[in-house]
Each structure stands twice: as C-alpha cells, then as structure tokens.
C-alpha cells in the first residue's frame, strides 16, 4: 500500500498549548513566571528560579541571534529527505531564552554563530504552524516554506 509519509508534528501538552496556539496566530509567545518575572523555554510546570506555578504568556519580539547550529546531510527520518541539507539551530531570542529551530531563507553555508535572525511562521498543516527563523531583513516571500520543498515522498 502506498501512503504519504507523515511529517512529525508537535503534540502540545497543557503547558505548551498556549505556545502553539500563539504560533498558529503568528505570534511567538514566551512563558513568564507571574511571581518573579523570569522567562523560560520550553514551557514547563514551574519556575526554575522561584518554584512558582503561576505563569503568563508574553509576546517575544521574534528577533534573536544564532547560538549554534548543525547541518543535516543524512536522512534520519524520510519526511525530511526533501529538505536535505537543512540547518537546525539554537536561537537565543532578545528576551534571553533559547529555542531549537530551523534557519531558512539562506544557504546552509551562509549561516553563522551570532547571525541576526527573526522568526518566520511556517504553516505546515491546517492546524499547525512551526516557528522557524530567517536572516534579519529577509522578506517572507523569499523564504522557502516546507511545502515549497516539494511533496512528501510516498512509500
């Protein structure tokens, strides 16, 4: 039987749902401790600084810089075969938290540590938007979305 491969998509938890809902609305939200004000990512139950369970969500500027990155040349999962070579990076946001993401809108060998980047919302499925990052001042229209990489392979 031939079937289109499923791309692995995030399955939100109660703690993380506001983050993914925000992405769906093209807004990058960061979890903030209501008690001490510290920001944290990924979302978690309690604040590592003061142990408070009270949290709120605040918008990030969506701007940051590349803390480190790695280039995938080898297929670990067939749904990513069409993206090879692709860049996985840790981006440090202006607000101080780091997140794992992809760098899009430039060639892998143009990516470097310290490079200024900003968020690009990739609507990969009707209900799911994944926040990737592109070099600052790149127009969204210049960025290849996941869809632009061609169809998912059939197996």
């Amino acid at each position, binding site marked *: 039987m031939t079937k289109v491969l499923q791309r692995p998509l995030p399955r939100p938890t109660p703690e993380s749902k506001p983050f993914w809902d925000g992405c769906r609305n093209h807004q990058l939200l960061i979890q903030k401790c209501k008690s001490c004000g510290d920001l944290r990512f990924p979302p978690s139950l309690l604040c590592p600084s003061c142990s408070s369970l009270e949290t709120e969500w605040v918008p990030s500027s969506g701007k940051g810089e590349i803390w480190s*990155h790695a280039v995938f*040349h080898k297929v*670990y999962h067939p749904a990513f075969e069409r993206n090879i*070579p692709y860049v996985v990076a*840790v981006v440090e946001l202006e607000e101080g938290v780091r997140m794992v993401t992809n760098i899009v809108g430039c060639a892998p060998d143009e990516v470097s540590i310290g490079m200024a980047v900003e968020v690009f919302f990739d609507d990969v499925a009707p209900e799911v938007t994944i926040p990737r990052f592109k070099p600052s001042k790149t127009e969204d229209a210049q960025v290849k979305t996941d869809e632009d990489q061609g169809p998912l392979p059939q197996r």
Partner: protein
Amino acid sequence: MSEKLRSKYCIAGIGESELGQLDRQSAINLNLIASKRALDDAGISAKEVDGVIAMSSSREGISLLSLRLGELLGMMPLSFILDLDLEGATAAAMVQHAVMAMEAGMCRAVLCVLGGAGKMKAGEPHDINEISQEEEEFYVPYGMFDITARYAMAARRHMHRYGTTSRQLGLIAVAERAHARLNPIATMKEPMTIDEHQSSPWAVEPLRLLDCPFQSDGAGAFVVVPKARAKDLKCPPAFIMGMGQSHPHREILDSASLTTTGAKVSGEIAFRMAGLSLSDVDVAELSDPVTYAVLVQLEDYGFCKKGEAGAFLESEGIELNKAKIPVNTHGGLLSCADVPGILHITEAVKQLRNGCGERQVAEAEVALVSGSGGVMSTHMTLVLGK
C-alpha cells in the same frame, strides 16, 4: 569526596564479553559472561558477592536486571542492588555507588556490570534514541534527531570561539584507531589516516562519521571490594584513589557553555580526594561519545589551556609513544567498542597491572578515567592507582 576514602576500596577483577556484532548473543548472556570473567579474574566466588549494580534495563526489556543477574550467577540472597542509567557516565558512577554502599556497611563485595546486544545494525552511527515528550515536541518537528546533532552544535561553538578545526578533531579519531589496532579485543582495526577522516561524510556537520562511534554489542564487568579483602586476590588490584561528579546542565538550551564541561569541577574533586594532580597521571581513558568530547576534556582536565586543545593535538597529542599522557589506549568508544564507558575502566586496570602488551604505557601507576552522559551533561571522574 572525603580524603578518608582514598584507596580504601579497589577494583579487584575485570571481565569483558566478546565485542562487536554478536548476532546470536542476548544482552543477559553478555552480562553473565563478563561477570563470570570478572569474578574469575579476581579469584572471588559468586557466593562472596552480596551487591550487584547493573545498567538500568529499560533498554533491554528486563526489569530488576541487577537482581536477575545476581540470581543467575548464584549470589542470592543479595543485600544491595542498583539498576542505574546515566548513559555514558554509568560505568564510572557504578564505582562510586559501590564504594558508597560498602562504606555505608550495606555489603562487602559489589559486582558492577554493563552491556547490551542487538540494538542497532553494525556499521551504522547512532540512530534515533528513545525520545522524551519534550524532544518530540520541541526538537523533532525541526528535523533534529540524534545526540550527534547536539555534539555538533557544541563542537561548532568551540570552532567559532577558538578556531578549532575538523582536522584537529580527526587527530583524536586517528590516535584512537591506532591504539585499537594494538588491542586484541577492539572491533575497529582498519588503519585510519587523517585524510580518510577528512573525506568521511558528515554525520551532522561539523562532525563526520569518523568522529562518532559505531554501534557494537558487548559487556564489561568489574568487582569492587575493600582494601582489606585485596590481600589474596589473583591479580593486583587497582585502588580507587579519587572520585568526583559534576553536572552542569541537562539540555543544551539550558547550558551555560558547551565549551567547558563538568570535567573541570569533577576532576578537581577527584584529584583533591586522591591527593594528586594531573602531572601524576600516566594514562587517561576519557569518555569519547564523539571526538569533540575528548578535545574539550583535554582542556578541562588541564592537559592544555582552555581553547588550545586543537594546537595541543597537533603538537603533543594523545597517541601512545608520543604523548606524555596517552589517552584511550584501548581505542575508546570510537574504535574499541561502543559499550558505555566500562571498557575505559577495564583498560585502566589492565594498564595499572602492566598487562597491555604492545600498547602498555611504561610504568603506569596512576590512571585517570572519565564518564559522561547526555551532551557533556553529566560527568564522572575516577583516579585509579596501583
């Protein structure tokens, strides 16, 4: 750790199963074979052992593995058991837990054993590990698979900050391969040149396939006893002079630095307990889940200054007969066998016994051993002596 414990306990016997691609061997049999060999090597009967530490068995589908191994080895009843999984730091941690259990009076002789079988196909680098909800949600959707990618990011930061090169990392792989070629039990014996390393494909850039270990089956074991029991052993014991731990982070998102590891603090604790310093060390068996992990430990343990390991590898290096302190004389995870950390310990004991033949370090009296798990997240240090 308290200096009062210096050399109060020792590794009395060591054992290894066959290593490599062992199609018809079960994990439990490899654990049993390594255990039997360690007991025979020590000249200690199974009945005398009343504590067992095994690697936590969720990976092998056997719960309470330490207890089952004790049962199959005829050690019942046991008075101390522990199933433990700190990834590549597990074996070095076992030594520490064995000492703690005996010091607390819970048992008199502890068997430590670790190994597995049939996990992956031979010749493949590390594949997708068991993943957590957090990883599935915040790593995998971006195509970030495999521990190698995290190490690649760590290596990239060192390269960016200090100008370290892939070729310098390659010198570690080449030296370990040269050592493996002198080790009868090593699984990777094809010669490797630096040019071959440089032309090997990317695992995850900037790490190449030859910067990573290849999966292999196998098990190792050792027996820990108090010094008082060491008088009539079959082989000379290796005394546990110093031990330490340090755990700077779990995930790279929360790490202060991927260019310094727990080795620095863990090493200071262990050397203080031992009353020694790096200049007393004759041979080092350092955790090598990838080449970069060795490079950064050379700096953190003080073989050279921070940021200078690349140049150090080009000058003094880590190879037998060239380096002041040869590193990973058995070939390490990279070229001996990818059995988490325990072969580093058995090799250190062999070196201290002057039992390494062609790869023997002359007059080896003090050995430094490390273990690390995660992405240089958890770190263990042992200082062993004659």
